[in-house]
């Protein structure tokens, strides 16, 4: 599903990604682990065709990012800080924007689109809250609303940017279960996080990123102290693997 070959991205003098080569197959949940500034967001942007790749190439489901975008293959769940939660849209409206790529000039929804939105809301268990303004949801519900948008879009690759920040334990378990289900449908889920404790339940595999891919393999191996020490450029904090860490 994801094929990145020797991807290098520079912002001016700053090297954001340095020769990233990565293969992630369909039906996989992959955890993307790295510190702030490690290039996680840049890799997401490269997959969405939002940055100029200085060197190398990216393919999503065999297409260039631009083509994959036009076909609505890539769904995106933004991190909490990137959203204006006071914006006058309802949960239903947000999920409906997942259908826009399929719609005509004015994006007027057809019955099939309303159905797709209703199904997506049902899937994330937000049907009862569909008419709420988006900011009136809890942290976990907000994330699920955006996941529902990806479902309504029928995205084959779902990118989630720090989905567990500001989310309580119970919602986290709900989101983990939901993402596992989506992978079982054959979708690919790429989750960026600097938070490690959800990873074993969530991900099939993990990528450790520090501008380059330091490690790509099983979650258990990724969580070994020497791997993490290199990823975070320091000693592993003793509570990083504990259940209470955040």
């Amino acid at each position: 599903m994801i094929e990145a070959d020797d991807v290098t991205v520079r912002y001016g003098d700053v090297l954001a990604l340095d020769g990233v080569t990565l293969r992630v197959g369909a039906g996989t949940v992959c955890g993307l682990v790295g510190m702030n500034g490690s290039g996680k967001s840049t890799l997401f942007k490269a997959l969405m065709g939002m940055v100029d790749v200085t060197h190398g190439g990216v393919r999503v489901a065999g297409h260039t990012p631009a083509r994959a975008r036009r076909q609505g293959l890539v769904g995106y769940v933004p991190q909490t800080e990137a959203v204006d939660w006071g914006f006058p849209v309802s949960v239903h409206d947000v999920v409906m924007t997942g259908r826009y790529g399929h719609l005509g000039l004015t994006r007027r929804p057809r019955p099939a689109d309303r159905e797709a939105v209703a199904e997506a809301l049902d899937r994330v268990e937000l049907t009862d809250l569909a008419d709420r303004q988006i900011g009136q949801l809890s942290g976990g519900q907000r994330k699920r609303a955006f996941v529902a948008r990806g479902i309504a879009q029928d995205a084959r690759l779902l990118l989630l940017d720090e989905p567990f920040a500001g989310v309580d334990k119970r919602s986290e378990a709900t989101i983990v279960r939901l993402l596992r289900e989506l992978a079982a449908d054959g979708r690919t889920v790429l989750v960026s996080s600097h938070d490690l404790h959800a990873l074993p339940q969530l991900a099939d595999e993990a990528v450790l990123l520090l501008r380059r891919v330091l490690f790509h393999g099983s979650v258990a191996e990724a969580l070994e102290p020497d791997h993490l020490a290199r990823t975070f450029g320091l000693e592993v904090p003793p509570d990083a693997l504990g259940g209470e860490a955040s």
Partner: protein
Amino acid sequence: MTLLDLLLEPLSYDFMVRAFVTTTVAAVVAALLSCWLVLVGWSLMGDAVSHAVLPGVVIAYILGAPFALGALVFGGLAVVLIGAVRDSGRVKEDAAIGIVFTTLFALGLVLVSVTPSQTDLSHIIFGNVLGISSVELAQVLALAVVGSTVLLVKRRDLVLFAFDPTHAHAIGLSTRRLSALLLGVLALTAVVTLQVVGVILVVAMLIIPGATASLLTQRFGRMLVLAPTISALSSIIGIYLSYWLDAASGGMVVLVQGAVFTVVLLTSPRYGPLRRWRARSVPAGVRA
């Protein structure tokens, strides 16, 4: 004199009828646009583009070309220059906007001062809705129809652009094109609105109605009804007041809009100070 006389007397003059029609039309299209501008966070951009169109309008006057054309050219030029100054490195965006629009506005002022004309070009700066001609009214109507149609046809895309441009991009929409569309309508609307309140105060009509409506509802669809309604009503009240008090019409229109915003802000159930007072006066157990 009865209230009805007060309301009807101005309408016996053709120039007043034209003023009312122009004001209502401009108020509606500016208010529609303002709903997006306040949500995208483009208030300063609205200020910049509406000031920067001045030299374009004056040059169009000199060449006998449509005002809208000159405004579009200079509105676009302002946006390009702002981008160029910002991307040059050291200067932040707000400073870039401030430098570019004041310089273009100053160019407009200089052009006004050296252009011989029968009509007073200072009307472009301060507005002169009471002196509007039938031809100008026809232009205003045409531009307003174009602007409103574009906004309403593309309203869902523009809302998405305001709410989550990354998702808009991810599903294959061109955010660059949507922002250009919004800027184009902004330049057109500036031409319409400057007839009423003048270049200096255009930005008020491009921000206040949307901001007022956003205090009253959490539904964008309702904002699109509330903002034009409030804007049109308060603008008409402003024209009446300017007629009876013999005061500047552009200033009066904006003054009434600002007053309405203030009242809404103070009484808003969600955001106003009365909310806190009410919350205190209700016993804790009764609160919803």
